């Protein structure tokens, strides 16, 4: 067992435990913190794959920005502990079950497909993994791809973000004017 495998199992286990904790805790703050743990473990998995940049972005964007806002909202609204009932009732329960089954089917399909097409532990797979670990994808490469091959998607994404930004400003302004 090489070090990468051991690390993979550690991060994978932490990530799974965190994900289960998100849905098992009754208190939203604990759930949010568990989600952060999961994000961290996933960043670790990215590092094993040699994608250092993605790992850093994962922590900066998800753990550092989005989850802080989540915590903010939870604290400001002072959401109490969820009761055992009430969280999922009636129609919502049906929708949740259908979506859950769909997601599980997807996951199983991907896993089976991957297992059929690549032999886990085969020499080819190990060589590929070793190559990735030894030559991590440089930030330089990502930047170059973004500004050449993926220029159009990149620009479209920035336009969408800009539109969202302007939308937020317009919405907030209107609210303030009606208040005054």
């Amino acid at each position, binding site marked *: 067992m090489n070090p990468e495998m051991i690390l993979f199992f550690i991060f994978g286990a932490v990530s799974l435990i965190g994900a289960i904790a998100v849905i098992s805790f009754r208190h939203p703050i604990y759930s949010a913190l568990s989600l952060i743990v999961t994000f961290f473990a996933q960043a670790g998995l990215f590092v094993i794959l040699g994608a250092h940049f993605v790992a850093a972005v994962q922590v900066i964007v998800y753990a*550092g920005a989005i989850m802080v806002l989540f915590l903010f909202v939870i*604290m400001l609204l002072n959401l109490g502990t969820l009761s055992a009932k009430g969280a999922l009732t009636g129609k919502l329960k049906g929708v949740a079950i259908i979506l859950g089954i769909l997601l599980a089917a997807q996951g199983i399909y991907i896993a089976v497909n991957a297992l059929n097409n690549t032999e886990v532990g085969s020499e080819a797979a190990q060589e590929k993994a070793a190559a990735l670990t030894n030559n991590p994808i440089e*930030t330089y490469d990502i930047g170059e791809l973004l500004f050449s091959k993926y220029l159009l998607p990149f620009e479209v994404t920035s336009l969408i973000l800009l539109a969202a930004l302007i939308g937020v400003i317009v919405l907030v302004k209107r609210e303030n004017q009606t208040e005054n």
Partner: protein
Amino acid sequence: MESLPLHVFIISSIVKILIVAHLLIIGVMAMIWSERRVSGWMQDRLGPNRVGPQGLLQPIADGIKFLFKEDLIPNHVDKPLYVLAPAMLLVPAMIIVAVVPFGSSMTIAGYEIPLQIADLNIGILYILAITSLGVYGVVIGAWASNNKYSLLGGLRSSAQMISYELTLGLAIIGVLMLSESLKLREIAEGQGANPWEWNFLIHFPAFLAFTTAVFAETNRLPFDLAEAEQELVAGYHTEYSSMKFAIFFMAEYMSMIVGSAVVVTLFLGGWHFFGLENIGGEGSVLAGLISFAIFFVKTGIFLFVFIWVRWTLPRFRYDQLMNFGWKFLLPVALSSIVVTGTLYIITKGNRLWIGVGNVVAAFIVVAIVAGMLAMDNNSKSAAQNTPAAAPLRGLDAVE
């Protein structure tokens, strides 16, 4: 630099981690002493001078006192998170230092060992990522205390940290453009031996913006609204006592030390000083020690600036803080990106032109923003006939 054999790498890494971790803790003690002594000096009083020579053992006395105090956990707190919060603040402050190069390199037993724990490909992104985690300790501590003053302090602090993080990240981009690397070692090496070749002159506005943002991230005066005594008792650590309270303070001092070290690496030439760092030949033990000493002294001088500013500037009001961060620092940092990028292409990387262009652009940006704010204030006061104090919006409305 060729990679070291595994056993050398492991041994040297362990030694470096031990040295740096202990230096950080000793540095915290030194900061406690020097903050109190320098504060005393600035206020024309003595400061603590009874325990040991010149009061040097005062931090140890303080530490013993904290350890022996009753470790109180109030009944109304959320216990697991209340205990976890100080650690969540201390750990990010401590692990940032792993990527900071604190000297050139040493050749020991034929192996050239870099004076840095880990030279990550994404060094600077790692720093930004870990910095953004510091806010959790404050927010969780504040919330778990179940006390409204704590919560208000925590909310203020997190809003402030999120706002200034943007400046922190954007101010670095200009530096990255010229050094063409995210590795901290290459950024430090890219700056020449002499002070006029260092980044703080080439990116002067970005340097000021970054330094200000570091002050805000460490919750130091003039940005310590999170613990404004007159308004919030002591902010997010009101309910903490004994060693847990001390850990909050250790974290603050550690992030000050680490912040200074990062500023020195990015803007103040790292371990370079007039070529002194090469005495005894590049890569020798002597050169390594001297470069480490230079880095140490530079960080120390910057830490003195932290204390100096504390007793020079009064605390901001909350709306001033937000206005300053969003309307002045952020545009200045953005202008530095645009100007550095444009001039880098036009002048083919001429450092002098980029330096001048950055300062001119920053002046123009500040003038435009100040003009717009003045016009805004005039129209407001004309319409409402009230003083131009900006109404508190957003978060404050909730507070």
